[in-house]
C-alpha cells in the first residue's frame, strides 16, 4: 500500500518520461485556463474589493454570446466584436445595478450579490441562446487547429496547436495588463482605488468609471478564457464547476496578485493532472474533482497569506 502511494507513481514517471511530459503539458494547459479565470477575479478584487463569484459564468456567457451570435448568421469576427460590446454593456450594467447601490456594504454582501449575478446570467444566457452545449467556432476565428506530435524521450508527445495558441494569447494578455496597470494613468487610478476607495474619491478619481473599466477588462479576459476553453471541449454551463477551481488558484496565489494567479493556476493545473494520472487509479479515479481544493487547503495551513502575499499581522 505504502509502496503504491509513495514509490510506484515515481517509478512510473521515470519509466515512461514521455507520458510524464504529456501529463505535465496537459496540466499546464488546464492551468492556463484556471489562471485566466483567476486573473479576472484578481482584476476585479484589486480594484473594487469585490470577490466576483460570477467570473466563471462570465466566461461561459462570453463564449455563449460569441457562438450564439455566429449561429444566428453573424460573421465570426463581427460576432467577436459584438461580444466585446456585450461584455462592455454587461460591465456598465453591473456597475449601475449592482455595485453602485451596494457601495460601502460589507464584502460578504457584495460577494453574495455576485452569486445573484451568476444565477441571472445563467438564466439569461440559456433563455437567449438555449441550454444545449455548442461547439466553439475555432476555425472561423482563424485559430490554429490540429496536433503537433513530437518524438521525444522514447515516445510521442502530442501538443494541440490551439493549446499553444492559448498559452501565447494568455501571455500577451498578462503582459498587456501588467503594462496597463503600471504605466498608464488609469492603471494608477486603479491601484489607488484598490488601496482605499475614500482616498481615491477624495483626489477626484471616479469610482464608477474605474469599476466599469475593470469589469470590462475582466470581461475581455473572460472572453479569451471562454474561446480557449470552448475550443478544448464545448460551450455549456458545465464550466461553472471548472470555474470554481479558480478559488484554490486564488488561495495559492493570493487574491490581489496577478503573477500569483498565473503561478497558482499552473501549480493547480499540473498538480491535479499528475495526481489524477498517477495516484487517481489507486482510489478509483475521478479525484480531479476535489484534488485542487485539498492542494490549496494543505498550502493554506502552512502559508495563510498565499504564495506572494505579505505576512499577515493582526492588529487591534
Amino acid at each position, binding site marked *: 500500500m505504502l509502496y503504491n502511494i509513495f514509490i510506484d507513481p515515481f517509478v512510473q514517471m521515470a519509466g515512461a518520461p514521455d507520458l510524464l511530459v504529456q501529463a505535465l503539458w496537459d496540466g499546464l494547459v488546464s492551468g492556463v485556463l484556471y489562471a485566466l479565470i483567476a486573473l479576472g477575479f484578481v482584476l476585479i478584487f484589486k480594484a473594487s474589493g469585490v470577490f466576483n463569484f460570477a467570473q466563471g459564468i462570465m466566461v461561459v456567457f462570453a463564449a455563449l454570446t460569441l457562438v450564439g451570435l455566429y449561429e444566428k448568421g453573424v460573421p465570426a469576427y463581427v460576432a467577436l466584436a459584438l461580444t466585446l460590446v456585450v461584455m462592455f454593456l454587461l460591465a456598465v450594467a453591473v456597475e449601475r445595478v449592482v455595485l453602485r447601490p451596494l457601495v460601502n456594504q460589507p464584502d460578504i454582501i457584495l460577494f453574495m450579490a455576485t452569486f445573484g449575478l451568476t444565477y441571472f446570467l445563467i438564466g439569461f444566457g440559456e433563455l437567449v441562446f438555449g441550454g444545449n452545449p455548442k461547439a466553439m467556432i475555432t476555425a472561423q476565428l482563424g485559430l490554429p487547429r490540429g496536433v503537433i506530435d513530437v518524438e521525444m524521450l522514447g515516445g510521442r508527445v502530442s501538443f494541440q496547436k490551439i493549446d499553444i495558441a492559448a498559452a501565447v494569447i494568455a501571455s500577451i494578455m498578462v503582459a498587456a495588463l501588467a503594462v496597463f496597470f503600471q504605466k498608464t494613468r488609469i492603471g494608477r487610478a486603479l491601484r489607488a482605488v484598490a488601496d482605499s476607495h475614500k482616498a481615491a474619491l477624495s483626489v477626484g478619481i471616479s469610482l464608477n468609471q474605474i469599476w466599469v473599466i475593470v469589469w470590462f477588462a475582466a470581461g475581455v479576459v473572460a472572453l479569451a478564457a471562454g474561446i480557449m476553453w470552448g475550443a478544448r471541449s464545448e460551450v455549456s454551463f458545465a464550466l461553472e464547476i471548472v470555474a470554481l477551481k479558480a478559488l484554490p488558484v486564488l488561495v495559492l496565489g493570493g487574491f490581489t496578485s496577478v503573477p500569483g494567479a498565473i503561478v497558482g493556476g499552473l501549480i493547480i493545473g499540473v498538480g491535479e493532472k499528475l495526481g489524477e494520472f498517477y495516484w487517481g487509479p489507486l482510489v478509483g479515479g475521478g479525484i480531479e474533482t476535489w484534488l485542487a481544493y485539498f492542494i490549496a487547503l494543505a498550502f493554506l495551513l502552512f502559508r495563510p497569506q498565499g504564495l506572494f502575499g505579505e*505576512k499577515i*499581522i*493582526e492588529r*487591534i
Partner: protein
Amino acid sequence: MSNQIIGGPGLFSRRDDSVAKGEPLLTVENVSLRFGGVRAISDVSFDIRKGEVRAIIGPNGAGKTSMLNVINGFYHPQEGRISFRGQTRRRMRPSHAAAQGISRTFQNVALFKGMSTLDNIMAGRTLHMKRGFFWQLWRHGPALDEEIRHRRVVEEIIDFLEIEAVRKTPVGKLPYGLQKRVELGRALAMEPDLLLLDEPMAGMNLEEKEDMCRFILDVNNAFGVTIALIEHDMGVVMDLSDRVVVLEYGRKIADGAPDEVKASQAVIDAYLGVAH
C-alpha cells in the same frame, strides 16, 4: 473562585488575595517584540502593583498598544518574561489570559456590532458560565437559572455605567461615547483582577471624558480593580494615575509618579522634540 453575586457594592466577589495590595500584580521583564525587521518593543521592564492605576503614555507609535497586546497574550514577545500573580510565562493564548483575570478595552471600539448592549455584556460573563452544551440544548432549568443569575450581575454593571436606556439596542447603532462605555461594561463583566484600558477617552468631548474618569476611578476604588491605562490626554493621566511609564520608539524612557515623570527631561524631549 465563586460565582455567587450579591447586589450592592459587593459586585465583585472574585477577590484574589494571593497578591497583597501594593505588591506587584504584573511584572514585565526585558520584553522585546519584533515584526519582521521592525522592533515594536525593545527591552522594556516595568510592573503594575495591585490596586493602582498605572498609565502607559508615549507619542504615537511608541508601542503602547503592542505592550497591552503582549500583556494579554495576543502578541508573543521574542524575548523577555511576563509574570502575572507570580506565574511567569512567555507565550500564552489570549483566552488563557482572560481566564487568569486580565480583561481589556480597545483603542478602536471592538464590540460585537450585531448584538445588543445586554448581549455584549453578557458575553463578558462567558468565562463565569459553567453549564455545558447539553444543558444549553434544553435552556429551561439549570441553564436558564444560570443565565438569570448572570443577568443580575450584568444589570448591576448597566446601572453602574448608566446605560439602562440602551440595554436592548444593537451596539452598532449607539453613539461612540456610549459604545466606549458598553465596552468598559463588557470588560468589567469578566470581573478582572487587571483591567487594560486602551485610550478609553479618545474622541470624547469634555463631558464624556469626565464621566469616563469617574467610572474608571470608581472601578478602581470601589471594586478594587487594578488598572493599566493608555491615554493621550495628559490632564487625565496626571489626575487619574498613581504611576506612569513612558515609552518612546518601543523603549522605556521614564517611570514613576506623575510629577516625577512630568519633570523628566527625556519625557519633555520626547513630547516637545529636541534640537539636535
